[in-house]
């Protein structure tokens, strides 16, 4: 005891005591917390997907969509949007939204695939809506015809997403995004749920075979094979004109100055 009393006046004593106190409080709190907190933080494999989704929903979505997904002034109701819609919005990182604006932007997803599926399963309980398409449905694109897909793409998609899926402008700051990052599953989900300004392409409008063909064509576009050289963003003549004036004519004028320089 005497040794300890001697240590009392050591200059590190107070720091050590502080750390000890912090450790006691934090370990104690986490223990108590575990007992008090409901399912929200307690995700175990024994719970069903819906329960897990419910917890994630309460934590990350309810502030805008309401605790029961009924919608608030900040976000629409989710009754009837279906699992496919949730999976599309969350897996493309659009939900949760970074900031309100004319359009929600694609970004890195905040939830992993398991959590995304749980959210989708939970939201699907609010009311019937399009389900996440099955793997066979999505993978059908591998057997589809690319030229048929191109024809369907140009008829149904190119008017907003541009001829090469590079995206295009819509009204008041809204836009059709580039399809460069979209996975076959996400493209399928977008077609059946119609996110943001996009129309819904039901199976009556575009049969599953047609959807598969379109996905096939987009995969072809995303290979980015450019037989003509650099593609300039595949945006059409605007970037071509820019390159002509800045690079082409710029280089020629530099040469003209060189040739026109007086010989000394």
């Amino acid at each position, binding site marked *: 005891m005497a040794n300890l009393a001697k240590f009392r006046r050591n200059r590190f004593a107070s720091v050590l005591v502080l750390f000890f106190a912090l450790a006691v409080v934090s370990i104690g709190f986490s223990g108590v917390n575990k007992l008090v907190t409901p399912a929200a933080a307690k995700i175990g494999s024994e719970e069903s997907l819906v329960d897990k989704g419910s917890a994630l929903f309460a934590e990350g979505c309810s502030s805008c969509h309401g605790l029961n997904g009924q919608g608030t002034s900040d976000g629409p109701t989710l009754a009837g949007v279906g699992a496919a819609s949730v999976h599309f919005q969350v897996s493309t990182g659009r939900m949760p939204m970074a900031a309100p604006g004319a359009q929600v932007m694609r970004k890195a997803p905040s939830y992993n695939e398991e959590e995304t599926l749980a959210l989708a399963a939970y939201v699907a309980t609010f009311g019937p809506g399009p389900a996440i398409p099955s793997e066979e449905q999505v993978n059908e694109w591998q057997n589809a015809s690319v030229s048929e897909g191109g*024809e369907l793409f140009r008829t149904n998609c190119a008017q907003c997403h541009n001829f090469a899926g590079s995206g295009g402008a819509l009204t008041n700051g809204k836009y059709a995004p580039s399809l460069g990052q979209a996975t076959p599953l996400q493209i399928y989900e977008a077609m059946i749920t119609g996110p943001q300004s996009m129309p819904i392409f039901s199976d009556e409008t575009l049969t599953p075979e047609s959807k598969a063909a379109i996905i096939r064509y987009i995969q072809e576009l995303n290979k980015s094979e450019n037989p003509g050289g650099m593609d300039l963003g595949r945006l059409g003549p605007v970037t071509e004109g820019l390159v002509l004036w800045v690079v082409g004519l710029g280089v020629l004028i530099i040469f003209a100055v060189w040739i026109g320089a007086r010989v000394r």
Partner: protein
Amino acid sequence: MSNTTVNKKTPAAYNYVDSRVGFSAALKRNMRKVFPDHWSFMLGEIALYSFLILLLTGTFLTLWYKPSMTEVIYNGSYIPLKGIPMSEAYASTLEISFDVRGGMLLRQIHHWAALFFIAAMVVHLLRVFFTGAYRKPREFNWLLGIALLTLGLLAGFSGYSLPDDLLSGVGLKIASGIIQALPVVGTWALYFLFGGEFPGTEVISRLYSIHILLLPGAILALVTAHLLLVWTQKHTQYPGPGRTEKNVVGYPLLPVYTAKAGGFFFIVFGVTTLLGALVTINPIWLYGPYTPDQVTAGSQPDWYIGFLEGSLRVMPAIEFNIFNTWTFSPNVLIPALILPGLMFALMGAYPFLESWITGDKREHNLLDRPRNAPTRTALGTMSLSFYILLWIGGGNDIIATTFNLSINAITWFMRVALIAVPPLVFIATRRICLGLQRNDLDKLLHGKETGRILRLPEGGFVEVHEPVSEAELPKLLARETYPVWELPQKVDANGIKTPKYRRQLMKAKLSAWWTKGDLPIPTMKEIQSGQHHAHEALEQAHEFGVEPGKEEIVTSTNH
């Protein structure tokens, strides 16, 4: 034969031909012709060389291209379009791109050269405008140039339409809408051009004849006339030592100028080929064949039609019916027909308008420095700003997605800017020109600032000025002013009315506006005394021991 002296040293074959064709005299006369040297005189050459490249590559393309709208099923080597019905025109363009050896490269060189052709004409036009090269005796050549530009636009648009891809089809659809907007004759004109309803089965083959026969022929003829006029009128030159209105200072055609110009042709061809080889232009295989039920986002014309695209996009939607029978659509008529008509008419009339306002009917072979014609320069930049704003308006969708802006906001901004920005540009340019003139005047009257500060024995500080160099003096002296047009009395002393008084009044007002803010031209005596003064100051500085570039500050030499 007796009066022809045959040089025994020249080969017999040469003499044989020359005594029948007689070109040696013409060669002797013309090969020593002198051209002034300046990089800005080579901009028109870029256009000429691009045109030659277009003729060469275009001929190659005609060997495979089929100007037919007959529907065929594609069975070439581009897999994503296999089995798709399309016009023969589009199928043959795909064939050129994927199945003809070197076809893709030549197609892309042809397209890049077309963009170069018109861009070079535009920058050449700007050079001619801002230096006043269109003044007497070159007004006709200015008109020829404008005709060439118009033909170039038509040649470009007709060529852009030939592949019959989705993009060019949309362009043709817009063109058909513009034709229909013509009052009274619109519908008839559309049927005349397309041989029936849009798109019909005729338009591609008709455009083809126009594109490969009529327009290149007309361009070639006008280019020849353009160059012949340059040849006979001699080239203009910038003011400089030894250069006058009556001479041309430069290099002879042979060998120097021929070497330079010939070399430049290969440079232009080389740069165009590099672009054609490395950068995709008009990827028709991605656009797909044209069908009237399809359209792609970002449908744009090539850059030279971009200003019309912009004026169409920016124009508010005004349309009305007369007696509920005739649709009248100024929303298309004004931006797509009246505006370009007005622009080209003003461009053509400009040299005549200017000489009417300034009253200048003299011949000019020395060019103006842009600062020395502030009102003209300001009018030029003002028009240019209007044109560039139209360009931006034409690309509003690409700008919106690239910079995360609202396309509606851009359109509204353009509507305001097209009216507000050009006048501001006019005012700013004129002020800048006058400021530069003041600087020139200062150099003439007080010499050139050297940046060397001299402390005088009395304690005062002066900056040492040096006289303007012999090489720079002619440049500074080149400015001239025009007298303000004096308005005659409306009714003279005898009570007789001045004829055409209103026109005279307008001319007087325009003349006053033209010369507003002009600085007086210094007399030769003032300049000489100014230069002399600067010379003396420099001498004095040397006396105090200031050597140029050696010592920046000297203190008093009294000690």
